[in-house]
Protein backbone atom coordinates (compact mmCIF):
# COMPACT_ATOMS: atom_id res chain seq x y z
CA UNK A 1 0.00 0.00 0.00
CA UNK A 2 1.68 3.26 -1.07
CA UNK A 3 2.17 5.87 1.60
CA UNK A 4 0.77 9.36 0.97
CA UNK A 5 2.10 10.87 4.18
CA UNK A 6 3.88 14.13 3.51
CA UNK A 7 5.97 16.21 5.89
CA UNK A 8 6.84 19.90 5.62
CA UNK A 9 8.84 21.03 8.63
CA UNK A 10 6.73 20.03 11.64
CA UNK A 11 3.57 19.72 9.59
CA UNK A 12 2.65 16.09 8.96
CA UNK A 13 -0.13 15.49 6.47
CA UNK A 14 -1.86 12.27 5.53
CA UNK A 15 -1.85 13.32 1.89
CA UNK A 16 0.07 15.90 -0.11
CA UNK A 17 -3.21 17.53 -1.13
CA UNK A 18 -3.83 20.75 0.77
CA UNK A 19 -6.63 23.27 0.28
CA UNK A 20 -5.52 26.72 -0.84
CA UNK A 21 -5.97 29.90 1.16
CA UNK A 22 -9.09 31.91 0.44
CA UNK A 23 -11.00 29.11 -1.19
CA UNK A 24 -12.11 27.24 1.96
CA UNK A 25 -12.77 30.16 4.27
CA UNK A 26 -11.85 29.09 7.78
CA UNK A 27 -12.85 25.49 7.16
CA UNK A 28 -16.29 24.89 8.67
CA UNK A 29 -18.06 26.57 5.75
CA UNK A 30 -17.26 23.48 3.70
CA UNK A 31 -18.11 20.88 6.37
CA UNK A 32 -20.18 18.07 4.92
CA UNK A 33 -19.15 19.04 1.40
CA UNK A 34 -15.39 18.49 1.33
CA UNK A 35 -13.99 15.24 2.74
CA UNK A 36 -11.53 16.79 5.20
CA UNK A 37 -10.54 13.31 6.36
CA UNK A 38 -8.85 12.72 2.99
CA UNK A 39 -7.17 16.12 2.92
CA UNK A 40 -3.60 16.94 3.92
CA UNK A 41 -4.25 20.33 5.45
CA UNK A 42 -6.42 23.38 4.99
CA UNK A 43 -4.93 26.82 4.65
CA UNK A 44 -7.25 29.42 6.13
CA UNK A 45 -8.33 32.64 4.48
CA UNK A 46 -5.51 35.13 4.96
CA UNK A 47 -5.81 36.90 8.30
CA UNK A 48 -4.77 40.51 8.81
CA UNK A 49 -4.29 42.35 12.07
CA UNK A 50 -7.45 44.41 11.65
CA UNK A 51 -10.65 43.02 10.14
CA UNK A 52 -11.05 43.87 6.44
CA UNK A 53 -14.29 44.50 4.59
CA UNK A 54 -12.76 43.57 1.25
CA UNK A 55 -13.37 45.14 -2.15
CA UNK A 56 -16.55 46.44 -3.70
CA UNK A 57 -18.50 43.87 -5.73
CA UNK A 58 -18.51 42.36 -8.29
CA UNK A 59 -15.61 40.35 -6.92
CA UNK A 60 -15.63 37.42 -9.33
CA UNK A 61 -15.58 36.96 -13.06
CA UNK A 62 -14.97 33.81 -15.02
CA UNK A 63 -12.33 33.73 -17.74
CA UNK A 64 -11.52 31.04 -20.29
CA UNK A 65 -10.22 28.15 -18.19
CA UNK A 66 -9.92 30.39 -15.16
CA UNK A 67 -11.35 32.78 -12.64
CA UNK A 68 -10.54 36.31 -11.57
CA UNK A 69 -11.17 37.19 -7.97
CA UNK A 70 -10.85 40.52 -6.25
CA UNK A 71 -11.94 39.62 -2.75
CA UNK A 72 -9.45 42.05 -1.27
CA UNK A 73 -8.58 39.94 1.77
CA UNK A 74 -11.96 40.20 3.43
CA UNK A 75 -11.39 38.57 6.81
CA UNK A 76 -12.49 38.81 10.42
CA UNK A 77 -9.15 40.10 11.66
CA UNK A 78 -6.72 38.53 14.08
CA UNK A 79 -8.76 38.91 17.23
CA UNK A 80 -11.93 37.21 16.00
CA UNK A 81 -9.86 34.63 14.16
CA UNK A 82 -8.24 33.59 17.42
CA UNK A 83 -11.38 33.89 19.49
CA UNK A 84 -13.97 32.36 17.13
CA UNK A 85 -12.76 30.96 13.84
CA UNK A 86 -9.88 28.90 15.11
CA UNK A 87 -11.89 27.14 17.84
CA UNK A 88 -14.65 26.45 15.30
CA UNK A 89 -12.18 24.96 12.82
CA UNK A 90 -10.21 22.94 15.36
CA UNK A 91 -12.62 19.95 15.50
CA UNK A 92 -12.28 19.34 11.74
CA UNK A 93 -10.26 16.17 11.13
CA UNK A 94 -7.49 18.01 9.29
CA UNK A 95 -4.45 20.14 10.24
CA UNK A 96 -4.92 23.88 9.99
CA UNK A 97 -2.37 26.16 8.36
CA UNK A 98 -2.98 29.80 9.22
CA UNK A 99 -2.38 32.25 6.38
CA UNK A 100 -1.43 35.74 7.46
CA UNK A 101 -0.59 39.04 5.80
CA UNK A 102 0.74 42.22 7.31
CA UNK A 103 1.58 45.61 5.92
CA UNK A 104 5.24 45.16 6.84
CA UNK A 105 7.68 43.00 8.79
CA UNK A 106 6.33 44.21 12.13
CA UNK A 107 2.78 43.07 11.46
CA UNK A 108 3.97 39.78 10.01
CA UNK A 109 5.85 39.18 13.27
CA UNK A 110 2.82 40.10 15.32
CA UNK A 111 0.57 37.79 13.30
CA UNK A 112 3.05 34.91 13.28
CA UNK A 113 3.52 35.18 17.04
CA UNK A 114 -0.20 35.28 17.74
CA UNK A 115 -1.28 32.39 15.53
CA UNK A 116 1.93 30.47 16.17
CA UNK A 117 1.15 30.32 19.87
CA UNK A 118 -2.04 28.40 19.23
CA UNK A 119 -2.05 24.61 19.34
CA UNK A 120 -4.77 24.48 16.66
CA UNK A 121 -2.32 25.98 14.16
CA UNK A 122 -0.08 23.34 12.59
CA UNK A 123 1.86 25.74 10.39
CA UNK A 124 1.81 29.29 9.05
CA UNK A 125 1.72 30.61 5.49
CA UNK A 126 3.01 34.13 4.97
CA UNK A 127 1.04 35.74 2.18
CA UNK A 128 3.01 38.52 0.53
CA UNK A 129 1.47 37.98 -2.86
CA UNK A 130 -2.16 39.02 -2.89
CA UNK A 131 -2.64 41.14 -6.01
CA UNK A 132 -5.88 42.64 -4.72
CA UNK A 133 -4.84 44.87 -1.89
CA UNK A 134 -2.07 47.10 -3.12
CA UNK A 135 -0.68 47.90 -6.53
CA UNK A 136 2.51 49.86 -6.05
CA UNK A 137 5.10 50.11 -8.81
CA UNK A 138 7.47 47.90 -6.86
CA UNK A 139 5.38 45.38 -5.00
CA UNK A 140 6.79 43.58 -1.96
CA UNK A 141 6.57 40.23 -3.73
CA UNK A 142 9.28 41.15 -6.19
CA UNK A 143 11.56 42.81 -3.63
CA UNK A 144 14.01 40.28 -2.12
CA UNK A 145 15.09 42.69 0.62
CA UNK A 146 11.59 43.37 1.87
CA UNK A 147 10.74 39.68 1.68
CA UNK A 148 13.88 38.77 3.64
CA UNK A 149 12.87 41.20 6.37
CA UNK A 150 9.36 39.83 6.57
CA UNK A 151 10.50 36.24 6.82
CA UNK A 152 13.20 37.06 9.40
CA UNK A 153 10.69 38.89 11.54
CA UNK A 154 8.19 36.05 11.38
CA UNK A 155 10.96 33.54 12.00
CA UNK A 156 11.96 35.28 15.20
CA UNK A 157 8.36 35.49 16.31
CA UNK A 158 7.50 31.80 16.13
CA UNK A 159 8.98 28.32 16.07
CA UNK A 160 6.08 27.01 13.96
CA UNK A 161 6.69 25.82 10.43
CA UNK A 162 6.63 28.80 8.05
CA UNK A 163 5.90 28.76 4.33
CA UNK A 164 6.22 31.91 2.26
CA UNK A 165 3.72 32.27 -0.56
CA UNK A 166 5.35 33.73 -3.65
CA UNK A 167 3.79 35.66 -6.50
CA UNK A 168 4.02 34.62 -10.16
CA UNK A 169 4.00 38.29 -11.10
CA UNK A 170 7.74 38.88 -11.19
CA UNK A 171 10.47 38.25 -13.69
CA UNK A 172 12.94 37.25 -10.98
CA UNK A 173 11.25 34.86 -8.60
CA UNK A 174 14.55 33.16 -7.73
CA UNK A 175 15.97 36.13 -5.87
CA UNK A 176 12.83 36.29 -3.77
CA UNK A 177 12.95 32.55 -3.11
CA UNK A 178 16.60 32.76 -2.09
CA UNK A 179 15.93 35.64 0.26
CA UNK A 180 13.12 33.72 1.92
CA UNK A 181 15.22 30.60 2.34
CA UNK A 182 18.11 32.59 3.77
CA UNK A 183 15.80 34.34 6.21
CA UNK A 184 14.60 31.04 7.61
CA UNK A 185 11.47 30.00 5.72
CA UNK A 186 10.78 26.28 6.09
CA UNK A 187 8.97 26.05 2.77
CA UNK A 188 7.76 28.08 -0.21
CA UNK A 189 4.25 28.06 -1.63
CA UNK A 190 4.55 28.59 -5.38
CA UNK A 191 2.51 30.54 -6.24
CA UNK A 192 -0.42 32.92 -5.83
CA UNK A 193 -2.59 34.41 -8.60
CA UNK A 194 -1.58 36.63 -11.52
CA UNK A 195 -3.14 40.07 -11.96
CA UNK A 196 -5.76 40.09 -14.68
CA UNK A 197 -8.97 41.80 -15.72
CA UNK A 198 -12.09 41.50 -17.84
CA UNK A 199 -14.30 44.21 -19.20
CA UNK A 200 -18.08 44.09 -19.20
CA UNK A 201 -18.76 45.38 -22.69
CA UNK A 202 -22.47 45.81 -22.16
CA UNK A 203 -21.88 48.16 -19.25
CA UNK A 204 -18.62 49.56 -20.67
CA UNK A 205 -16.60 49.17 -17.53
CA UNK A 206 -14.35 46.67 -15.79
CA UNK A 207 -16.19 43.51 -14.80
CA UNK A 208 -14.72 43.67 -11.28
CA UNK A 209 -15.47 46.41 -8.80
CA UNK A 210 -11.75 46.54 -8.09
CA UNK A 211 -10.90 46.77 -11.83
CA UNK A 212 -8.27 44.00 -11.65
CA UNK A 213 -8.27 40.66 -9.85
CA UNK A 214 -6.15 37.58 -9.44
CA UNK A 215 -6.22 34.90 -12.13
CA UNK A 216 -6.58 31.38 -10.77
CA UNK A 217 -7.70 28.03 -12.09
CA UNK A 218 -6.51 25.84 -14.89
CA UNK A 219 -5.58 28.76 -17.12
CA UNK A 220 -2.86 29.60 -14.61
CA UNK A 221 -1.55 26.07 -14.21
CA UNK A 222 1.30 26.09 -16.76
CA UNK A 223 2.65 29.39 -15.43
CA UNK A 224 2.87 28.29 -11.82
CA UNK A 225 4.13 24.85 -12.81
CA UNK A 226 7.07 26.49 -14.58
CA UNK A 227 7.78 28.51 -11.44
CA UNK A 228 7.75 25.40 -9.26
CA UNK A 229 10.19 23.76 -11.68
CA UNK A 230 12.49 26.77 -11.48
CA UNK A 231 12.27 27.39 -7.73
CA UNK A 232 12.52 23.74 -6.66
CA UNK A 233 15.81 23.47 -8.49
CA UNK A 234 17.12 26.57 -6.83
CA UNK A 235 16.31 26.18 -3.14
CA UNK A 236 16.76 23.32 -0.75
CA UNK A 237 13.61 23.91 1.31
CA UNK A 238 10.41 22.16 0.20
CA UNK A 239 8.14 23.74 -2.38
CA UNK A 240 4.35 23.51 -2.21
CA UNK A 241 2.65 23.87 -5.60
CA UNK A 242 -0.44 26.02 -6.18
CA UNK A 243 -2.16 27.13 -9.34
CA UNK A 244 -4.90 25.43 -11.29
CA UNK A 245 -4.54 22.00 -9.77
CA UNK A 246 -7.78 20.17 -10.41
CA UNK A 247 -7.12 16.51 -10.96
CA UNK A 248 -4.62 13.74 -10.36
CA UNK A 249 -2.73 14.52 -13.55
CA UNK A 250 -2.20 18.13 -12.51
CA UNK A 251 -1.02 17.06 -9.06
CA UNK A 252 1.39 14.56 -10.61
CA UNK A 253 2.83 17.29 -12.84
CA UNK A 254 3.51 19.55 -9.87
CA UNK A 255 5.07 16.72 -7.87
CA UNK A 256 7.12 15.65 -10.89
CA UNK A 257 8.34 19.23 -11.24
CA UNK A 258 9.63 19.17 -7.68
CA UNK A 259 6.77 20.16 -5.38
CA UNK A 260 6.43 18.04 -2.24
CA UNK A 261 2.75 18.92 -1.82
CA UNK A 262 0.01 20.67 -3.77
CA UNK A 263 -2.81 23.03 -2.95
CA UNK A 264 -6.23 22.80 -4.55
CA UNK A 265 -8.13 26.08 -4.70
CA UNK A 266 -10.36 27.14 -7.55
CA UNK A 267 -11.06 23.53 -8.54
CA UNK A 268 -13.02 23.14 -5.29
CA UNK A 269 -15.72 25.42 -6.63
CA UNK A 270 -16.69 23.11 -9.47
CA UNK A 271 -15.53 19.91 -7.80
CA UNK A 272 -15.49 19.86 -4.01
CA UNK A 273 -14.61 16.17 -4.28
CA UNK A 274 -11.31 17.04 -6.01
CA UNK A 275 -9.04 16.72 -2.92
CA UNK A 276 -10.16 13.19 -2.11
CA UNK A 277 -10.28 12.20 -5.78
CA UNK A 278 -6.71 13.41 -6.19
CA UNK A 279 -5.54 11.55 -3.10
CA UNK A 280 -7.14 8.36 -4.45
CA UNK A 281 -5.71 9.03 -7.88
CA UNK A 282 -2.20 9.46 -6.51
CA UNK A 283 -2.53 6.23 -4.55
CA UNK A 284 -3.62 4.35 -7.68
CA UNK A 285 -0.87 5.86 -9.76
CA UNK A 286 1.73 4.93 -7.16
CA UNK A 287 0.40 1.41 -6.90
CA UNK A 288 0.36 0.89 -10.67
CA UNK A 289 3.82 2.34 -11.13
CA UNK A 290 5.55 0.88 -8.13
CA UNK A 291 6.08 3.96 -6.01
CA UNK A 292 6.05 3.47 -2.26
CA UNK A 293 6.05 7.07 -1.05
CA UNK A 294 5.31 10.58 -2.26
CA UNK A 295 9.01 11.41 -1.95
CA UNK A 296 9.68 9.14 -4.89
CA UNK A 297 7.39 11.17 -7.12
CA UNK A 298 8.93 14.49 -6.18
CA UNK A 299 11.00 15.80 -9.05
CA UNK A 300 10.60 12.63 -11.13
CA UNK A 301 10.52 14.66 -14.36
CA UNK A 302 13.79 16.39 -13.58
CA UNK A 303 16.94 15.52 -15.50
CA UNK A 304 18.89 14.81 -12.28
CA UNK A 305 16.25 12.38 -11.12
CA UNK A 306 15.76 10.81 -14.52
CA UNK A 307 19.46 10.18 -14.88
CA UNK A 308 19.53 8.52 -11.48
CA UNK A 309 16.57 6.34 -12.40
CA UNK A 310 18.18 5.33 -15.68
CA UNK A 311 21.46 4.38 -14.03
CA UNK A 312 19.68 2.53 -11.27
Amino acid at each position, binding site marked *: MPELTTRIGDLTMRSPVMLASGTVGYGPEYEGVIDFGATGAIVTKTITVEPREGNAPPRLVETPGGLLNAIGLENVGLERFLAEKLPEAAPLPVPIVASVAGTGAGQFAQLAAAVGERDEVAAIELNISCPNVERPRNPVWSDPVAVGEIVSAAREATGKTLSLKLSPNTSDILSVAEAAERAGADALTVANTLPGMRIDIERRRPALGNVTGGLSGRALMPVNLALVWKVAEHVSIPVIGSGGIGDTGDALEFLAAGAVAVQVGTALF*ATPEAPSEIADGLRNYMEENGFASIDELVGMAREERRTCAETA
Partner: protein
Amino acid sequence: MSPTSYLFTFEAGPEFPTPRPGQFVNVAVADDLTLRRPFSFAGIPAPGRFDLLVEMRGKGTRALAEKPIGSAVGVLGPLGNEFTLPGADSVSLLVGGGIGVAGLRLLAQELRRGYHRIHALVGARTSPGLLHHVLPSPTGDGEVLIEVATDDGSEGFHGTVAGLLERVLNELDAPARVYCCGPPAMIAATADITAKRGVPCEALLEEMMACGVGACRGCVVATRSGYKSVCSDGPVFDTNELVLEELVRA
Protein backbone atom coordinates in the same frame (compact mmCIF):
# COMPACT_ATOMS: atom_id res chain seq x y z
CA MET B 1 -34.16 39.95 -28.36
CA SER B 2 -36.66 38.13 -26.21
CA PRO B 3 -34.98 35.76 -23.77
CA THR B 4 -35.68 32.05 -23.84
CA SER B 5 -36.24 30.02 -20.71
CA TYR B 6 -36.53 26.33 -20.04
CA LEU B 7 -38.01 24.36 -17.19
CA PHE B 8 -35.76 21.48 -16.13
CA THR B 9 -36.75 18.72 -13.72
CA PHE B 10 -33.99 17.06 -11.73
CA GLU B 11 -34.22 13.69 -10.05
CA ALA B 12 -32.21 14.29 -6.88
CA GLY B 13 -33.03 11.14 -4.94
CA PRO B 14 -34.66 10.66 -1.55
CA GLU B 15 -31.66 11.83 0.52
CA PHE B 16 -31.74 15.25 -1.08
CA PRO B 17 -33.15 17.63 1.54
CA THR B 18 -36.43 19.29 0.58
CA PRO B 19 -35.63 22.80 -0.66
CA ARG B 20 -37.32 25.79 0.94
CA PRO B 21 -38.61 28.77 -1.08
CA GLY B 22 -35.73 31.16 -1.68
CA GLN B 23 -33.04 28.50 -1.58
CA PHE B 24 -30.90 27.65 -4.58
CA VAL B 25 -28.68 24.94 -5.97
CA ASN B 26 -25.23 25.13 -7.57
CA VAL B 27 -25.16 23.15 -10.79
CA ALA B 28 -22.06 21.81 -12.53
CA VAL B 29 -23.31 22.75 -15.98
CA ALA B 30 -20.16 22.05 -18.05
CA ASP B 31 -16.73 20.52 -17.55
CA ASP B 32 -14.84 23.38 -19.16
CA LEU B 33 -16.34 26.11 -16.98
CA THR B 34 -14.53 27.08 -13.81
CA LEU B 35 -17.65 27.78 -11.81
CA ARG B 36 -20.96 26.07 -11.15
CA ARG B 37 -24.08 28.05 -11.90
CA PRO B 38 -26.61 28.97 -9.18
CA PHE B 39 -30.34 28.59 -9.81
CA SER B 40 -33.31 29.06 -7.51
CA PHE B 41 -35.45 26.05 -6.75
CA ALA B 42 -38.50 26.73 -8.84
CA GLY B 43 -40.71 23.83 -7.86
CA ILE B 44 -40.89 20.41 -6.20
CA PRO B 45 -42.93 18.27 -8.57
CA ALA B 46 -42.46 15.20 -6.34
CA PRO B 47 -40.39 14.23 -3.31
CA GLY B 48 -36.72 13.88 -4.29
CA ARG B 49 -37.25 15.99 -7.41
CA PHE B 50 -36.94 19.65 -8.13
CA ASP B 51 -37.58 22.06 -10.98
CA LEU B 52 -35.30 24.81 -12.23
CA LEU B 53 -36.53 27.55 -14.51
CA VAL B 54 -33.52 28.72 -16.47
CA GLU B 55 -33.10 31.65 -18.81
CA MET B 56 -30.49 31.22 -21.54
CA ARG B 57 -27.91 33.83 -20.71
CA GLY B 58 -24.51 32.49 -21.78
CA LYS B 59 -22.24 29.48 -22.07
CA GLY B 60 -23.35 27.72 -18.91
CA THR B 61 -27.07 27.94 -19.37
CA ARG B 62 -26.72 26.90 -22.99
CA ALA B 63 -24.57 23.92 -22.00
CA LEU B 64 -27.28 22.88 -19.55
CA ALA B 65 -29.95 23.14 -22.21
CA GLU B 66 -27.90 21.09 -24.64
CA LYS B 67 -27.50 18.14 -22.28
CA PRO B 68 -29.50 15.12 -23.34
CA ILE B 69 -32.51 14.35 -21.16
CA GLY B 70 -31.43 11.93 -18.46
CA SER B 71 -27.88 13.30 -18.13
CA ALA B 72 -26.25 13.07 -14.71
CA VAL B 73 -25.38 16.55 -13.47
CA GLY B 74 -23.54 17.45 -10.26
CA VAL B 75 -25.56 19.62 -7.89
CA LEU B 76 -24.68 21.18 -4.56
CA GLY B 77 -27.58 22.25 -2.36
CA PRO B 78 -30.00 23.24 -1.12
CA LEU B 79 -28.00 26.37 -0.35
CA GLY B 80 -28.85 29.69 1.25
CA ASN B 81 -31.59 31.02 3.49
CA GLU B 82 -35.30 31.22 2.76
CA PHE B 83 -38.18 33.65 2.46
CA THR B 84 -40.06 34.56 5.63
CA LEU B 85 -43.58 33.21 5.23
CA PRO B 86 -46.42 35.72 5.64
CA GLY B 87 -48.83 35.98 8.53
CA ALA B 88 -52.20 34.29 7.97
CA ASP B 89 -54.04 37.53 7.28
CA SER B 90 -51.64 39.23 4.89
CA VAL B 91 -51.60 39.27 1.14
CA SER B 92 -48.34 38.11 -0.40
CA LEU B 93 -47.27 40.36 -3.21
CA LEU B 94 -44.86 38.49 -5.45
CA VAL B 95 -42.98 40.92 -7.66
CA GLY B 96 -40.93 39.28 -10.41
CA GLY B 97 -39.00 40.90 -13.22
CA GLY B 98 -37.95 38.78 -16.17
CA ILE B 99 -36.47 35.46 -15.10
CA GLY B 100 -36.82 36.70 -11.50
CA VAL B 101 -40.15 34.88 -11.53
CA ALA B 102 -38.13 31.65 -11.21
CA GLY B 103 -37.07 32.63 -7.70
CA LEU B 104 -40.70 33.17 -6.65
CA ARG B 105 -42.29 30.09 -8.18
CA LEU B 106 -41.61 27.69 -5.33
CA LEU B 107 -42.81 30.33 -2.86
CA ALA B 108 -45.98 30.78 -4.88
CA GLN B 109 -46.59 27.05 -4.93
CA GLU B 110 -46.07 26.77 -1.20
CA LEU B 111 -48.30 29.76 -0.42
CA ARG B 112 -50.95 28.35 -2.71
CA ARG B 113 -50.90 25.04 -0.88
CA GLY B 114 -51.37 26.94 2.39
CA TYR B 115 -54.37 28.88 0.97
CA HIS B 116 -52.56 32.19 1.44
CA ARG B 117 -53.73 35.13 -0.65
CA ILE B 118 -51.28 35.68 -3.48
CA HIS B 119 -51.10 38.65 -5.75
CA ALA B 120 -48.35 38.16 -8.32
CA LEU B 121 -47.02 41.06 -10.33
CA VAL B 122 -44.92 39.97 -13.25
CA GLY B 123 -42.88 42.31 -15.40
CA ALA B 124 -40.81 42.12 -18.54
CA ARG B 125 -39.49 44.45 -21.18
CA THR B 126 -41.98 43.23 -23.74
CA SER B 127 -44.83 40.75 -23.84
CA PRO B 128 -42.90 37.65 -25.00
CA GLY B 129 -40.58 37.92 -21.96
CA LEU B 130 -43.42 37.61 -19.44
CA LEU B 131 -43.23 34.45 -17.33
CA HIS B 132 -46.48 34.68 -15.38
CA HIS B 133 -47.72 31.42 -16.91
CA VAL B 134 -45.27 29.43 -14.76
CA LEU B 135 -47.02 30.57 -11.59
CA PRO B 136 -50.12 28.92 -10.08
CA SER B 137 -53.22 29.84 -12.13
CA PRO B 138 -55.38 32.70 -10.96
CA THR B 139 -58.47 31.56 -9.06
CA GLY B 140 -62.04 32.82 -9.47
CA ASP B 141 -62.29 33.79 -5.82
CA GLY B 142 -59.36 36.19 -6.11
CA GLU B 143 -57.11 34.16 -3.80
CA VAL B 144 -54.57 34.02 -6.59
CA LEU B 145 -54.41 37.15 -8.72
CA ILE B 146 -51.84 37.74 -11.44
CA GLU B 147 -51.13 41.01 -13.17
CA VAL B 148 -48.50 41.79 -15.72
CA ALA B 149 -46.52 44.86 -16.71
CA THR B 150 -44.40 45.56 -19.77
CA ASP B 151 -41.97 48.41 -20.24
CA ASP B 152 -43.28 48.96 -23.76
CA GLY B 153 -46.93 48.46 -22.91
CA SER B 154 -47.25 45.51 -25.26
CA GLU B 155 -49.20 43.64 -22.55
CA GLY B 156 -50.82 44.62 -19.26
CA PHE B 157 -49.71 47.63 -17.25
CA HIS B 158 -47.58 50.03 -19.32
CA GLY B 159 -44.49 50.60 -17.20
CA THR B 160 -42.25 48.80 -14.77
CA VAL B 161 -43.50 46.14 -12.43
CA ALA B 162 -42.50 48.45 -9.57
CA GLY B 163 -44.91 51.04 -10.93
CA LEU B 164 -47.59 48.38 -11.00
CA LEU B 165 -46.74 47.46 -7.40
CA GLU B 166 -47.23 51.07 -6.35
CA ARG B 167 -50.71 51.10 -7.85
CA VAL B 168 -51.60 47.77 -6.26
CA LEU B 169 -50.35 48.86 -2.84
CA ASN B 170 -52.39 52.04 -3.08
CA GLU B 171 -55.54 50.03 -3.67
CA LEU B 172 -54.85 47.16 -1.28
CA ASP B 173 -57.35 46.49 1.53
CA ALA B 174 -55.21 44.15 3.65
CA PRO B 175 -51.77 44.01 5.25
CA ALA B 176 -49.15 43.02 2.67
CA ARG B 177 -45.79 41.36 2.51
CA VAL B 178 -43.69 41.85 -0.60
CA TYR B 179 -41.30 39.30 -2.14
CA CYS B 180 -39.28 40.41 -5.10
CA CYS B 181 -36.74 39.02 -7.50
CA GLY B 182 -35.35 40.58 -10.67
CA PRO B 183 -32.84 43.12 -11.95
CA PRO B 184 -31.14 45.39 -9.39
CA ALA B 185 -32.98 48.51 -10.53
CA MET B 186 -36.31 46.77 -10.06
CA ILE B 187 -35.34 45.57 -6.60
CA ALA B 188 -34.21 49.05 -5.62
CA ALA B 189 -37.49 50.58 -6.83
CA THR B 190 -39.52 47.93 -5.00
CA ALA B 191 -37.49 48.50 -1.86
CA ASP B 192 -38.17 52.24 -2.03
CA ILE B 193 -41.87 51.83 -2.56
CA THR B 194 -42.29 49.34 0.28
CA ALA B 195 -40.03 51.25 2.65
CA LYS B 196 -42.11 54.42 2.23
CA ARG B 197 -45.25 52.50 3.15
CA GLY B 198 -43.69 50.42 5.91
CA VAL B 199 -44.56 47.22 4.05
CA PRO B 200 -42.17 44.37 4.84
CA CYS B 201 -40.20 43.38 1.76
CA GLU B 202 -37.70 40.67 0.98
CA ALA B 203 -35.57 40.42 -2.15
CA LEU B 204 -33.87 37.41 -3.66
CA LEU B 205 -30.54 38.67 -4.97
CA GLU B 206 -28.18 37.43 -7.64
CA GLU B 207 -24.38 37.69 -7.55
CA MET B 208 -21.58 35.84 -9.29
CA MET B 209 -20.78 32.87 -7.06
CA ALA B 210 -17.85 30.54 -6.66
CA CYS B 211 -18.10 28.34 -3.54
CA GLY B 212 -21.79 28.78 -2.75
CA VAL B 213 -21.19 28.08 0.95
CA GLY B 214 -19.83 31.34 2.35
CA ALA B 215 -16.16 30.38 2.13
CA CYS B 216 -14.76 32.51 -0.67
CA ARG B 217 -16.48 35.87 0.00
CA GLY B 218 -16.93 36.30 -3.73
CA CYS B 219 -20.67 36.95 -3.84
CA VAL B 220 -21.07 39.86 -1.50
CA VAL B 221 -23.66 42.59 -1.50
CA ALA B 222 -23.46 45.81 0.48
CA THR B 223 -25.76 45.91 3.51
CA ARG B 224 -26.13 48.37 6.35
CA SER B 225 -24.03 46.00 8.45
CA GLY B 226 -21.26 45.61 5.85
CA TYR B 227 -20.78 43.19 3.00
CA LYS B 228 -22.86 40.02 3.31
CA SER B 229 -22.54 36.96 1.12
CA VAL B 230 -25.49 36.25 -1.12
CA CYS B 231 -24.87 32.51 -0.96
CA SER B 232 -24.84 32.01 2.79
CA ASP B 233 -26.27 35.16 4.40
CA GLY B 234 -28.80 35.34 1.54
CA PRO B 235 -29.90 35.01 -1.18
CA VAL B 236 -32.98 36.46 0.57
CA PHE B 237 -32.46 39.84 2.21
CA ASP B 238 -34.78 42.25 3.96
CA THR B 239 -34.65 45.17 1.55
CA ASN B 240 -34.31 47.59 4.47
CA GLU B 241 -30.92 46.02 5.11
CA LEU B 242 -29.59 46.69 1.62
CA VAL B 243 -27.53 49.68 0.55
CA LEU B 244 -29.55 50.31 -2.57
CA GLU B 245 -27.18 52.69 -4.34
CA GLU B 246 -24.43 50.08 -4.18
CA LEU B 247 -26.77 47.34 -5.32
CA VAL B 248 -27.63 49.29 -8.45
CA ARG B 249 -24.08 50.40 -9.09
CA ALA B 250 -22.43 46.97 -8.67
